[in-house]
């Protein structure tokens, strides 16, 4: 078990190092002088600030230092949590900006991923055993998964946000409010959160429901289910086994999907102008703020890696087949 975790950790560490290295290379190996082009695009008006930033970045790149030294410095900074200073929002450190955006992204992502997964699996499992439900869940599920995300999001923003006017379709909270711990602000926060959340939830829901339905039907046809039925075991017991076994691929599915879900959340934030990491990526791209971009990418990579690692471990704990293979307990 520990050897397995160690091996996994090693692989993840390797991935992390590669990701950081690629990230480090992006601004350095761009054609032209990245600092100049970045600063000119960023339209920093204050000449004093411009000068300060120019020298800061020149220094940071350490263009005269050998490449390996630049690389090591980058790591040293990273380990101290120092990802540089943003151009777009000078002189705020990149790390602070990211930490400010992360809660918004997480507040969207976690409930959308988990709820769609749980609800989707529930619906799928029900559909597998009832004809009526199957005839509704299946088509709805297919429609949801087949709908392009952009289209669904815009439809939601338009219908519930603009026409019905129930939920705001843009922003993280109203401009008139200041972030504070009050009912007014929190309810405003929630109403802004709702539409982007709903769009992500709906898009993921259909896929999980269909996957679960098919897995359960497959499990109910499996040899062990037939054997139990031949021995007169009640349907309840067989369904319980089938549900549990059908969950396993759904958990792997979750791990596989995580990357795409996170990419999806970036899109959501852009559509709904939601102030999370996705909007940050868009803004930093528009402003050629390479250091912010770099920081956000790093953050996303780390997030995906951690999430996958957690799922890997959960999977091992619940599936005896992988568990047995890893502990080598087979005889």
């Amino acid at each position, binding site marked *: 078990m520990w050897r397995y975790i160690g091996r996994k950790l090693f692989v993840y560490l390797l991935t992390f190092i590669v990701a950081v290295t690629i990230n480090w290379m992006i601004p350095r190996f761009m054609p032209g002088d990245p600092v100049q082009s970045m600063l000119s695009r960023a339209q920093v008006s204050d000449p004093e600030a411009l000068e300060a930033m120019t020298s800061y970045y020149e220094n940071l790149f350490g263009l005269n230092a050998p490449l390996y030294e630049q690389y090591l410095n980058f790591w040293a900074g990273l380990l101290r949590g120092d990802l540089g200073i943003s151009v777009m929002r000078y002189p705020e450190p990149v790390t602070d900006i990211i930490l400010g955006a992360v809660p918004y992204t997480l507040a969207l992502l976690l409930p959308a991923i988990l709820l769609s997964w749980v609800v989707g699996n529930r619906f799928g499992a029900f559909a597998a055993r009832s004809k009526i439900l199957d005839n509704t869940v299946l088509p709805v599920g297919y429609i949801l998964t087949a709908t392009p995300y952009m289209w669904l999001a815009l439809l939601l923003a338009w219908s519930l946000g603009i026409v019905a006017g129930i939920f705001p379709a843009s922003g993280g909270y109203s401009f008139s409010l200041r972030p504070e711990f009050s009912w007014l602000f929190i309810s405003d926060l929630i109403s802004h959160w709702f539409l982007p959340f709903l769009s992500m939830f709906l898009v993921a829901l259909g896929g999980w429901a269909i996957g679960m339905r098919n897995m359960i039907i497959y499990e109910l046809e499996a*040899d062990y289910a037939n054997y139990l039925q031949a*021995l*007169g075991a*009640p349907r309840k017991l067989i369904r319980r086994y089938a549900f549990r076994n059908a969950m396993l691929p759904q958990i792997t599915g979750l791990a596989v999907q995580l990357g795409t879900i996170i990419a999806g959340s970036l899109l959501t934030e852009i559509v709904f102008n939601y102030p999370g990491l996705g909007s940050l990526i868009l803004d930093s791209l528009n402003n050629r703020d390479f250091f912010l971009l770099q920081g956000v990418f790093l953050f996303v990579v780390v997030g995906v890696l951690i999430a996958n690692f957690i799922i890997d471990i959960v999977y091992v704990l619940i599936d005896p087949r992988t568990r047995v293979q890893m502990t080598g307990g087979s005889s």
Partner: protein
Amino acid sequence: MTLRVNDLKVYYQTLRGDVRALDGVTFDLADGEIMGLAGESGCGKTTLGKSMIRLDSRMRHVGGTIELNGKDVPIADDDAMVPLRYREISLIPQYAMSALNPTRKIGRMVNELLRARGVRPADIADELNRRLELVGLDTDVLNRFPIELSGGMKQRVVMVISTLLDPSLLIADEVTSALDVSTQRAVAESMVEFRDRGYVKSMIFVTHDISLVYQMADTIMVMYAGHIVEKAPAATIINEPKHPYTQMLIGALPEVGSTMVQGRLEGIPGTPPGLLNPPTGCRFKDRCPMAFSKCSEQPPLVEIEPGHWAACWKTG
């Protein structure tokens, strides 16, 4: 008489029509009898076994009856069959290697199954352990997952589970096919032992391996394309088969009765007819060297001498 099957017809429903996998099957099985059931692949052996315990969703009971210990077995009524399953009729499926839930420890699965059938696991735990040891397994297998067992071990575990409630009738479908020769012998011997100890009253032992079944079975029944062609005491089938098909089957054995030779059913020219639209008359007539004009009518299964039935116009 424990089991009496009369003119049983069970078809598979497919998009192209009914596959007549059991088309009028009649035989008796006495108390304590181990009957070997042989025949080429696809002749309906598994279908016969399944028909006696649970029809799957594609199988349809078209006609005929099954009687066990004087009572009708309502095979078409799934709910009415539940009380009989496991307690009266049990099955070691052809797929025994994958018959156990891969994500449950074996002991836990057995307990859950027993509880679902209204048996307290504690009442039967000693018996379970005793029987596992009888078939040469450590009782520790109960704490393991199926994946941790070898094929032969799984086969034996399923054998013990299937017979735990002492059923009257056990259908053992190809329990030895996936095993090596020495394990085959051990498993076959434990099956006889189970019968001798009264764990099961009678047994239908489905196999391709006539030389193995000859050594353990009391009688042998041979099927061909959904029909019974011959049933007789094991020695009679091997030494004096009457039906041309059985004769060719036995003739195809490399060395009849020798212990180590694995007799596989092959070497008869031609293939059995499809069961979607089977030919009328004797189903063997296309391959039968003795076929004559009368064979376009179906030969009835008749008792040509006490305990020896055959369905052929030449033997009748």
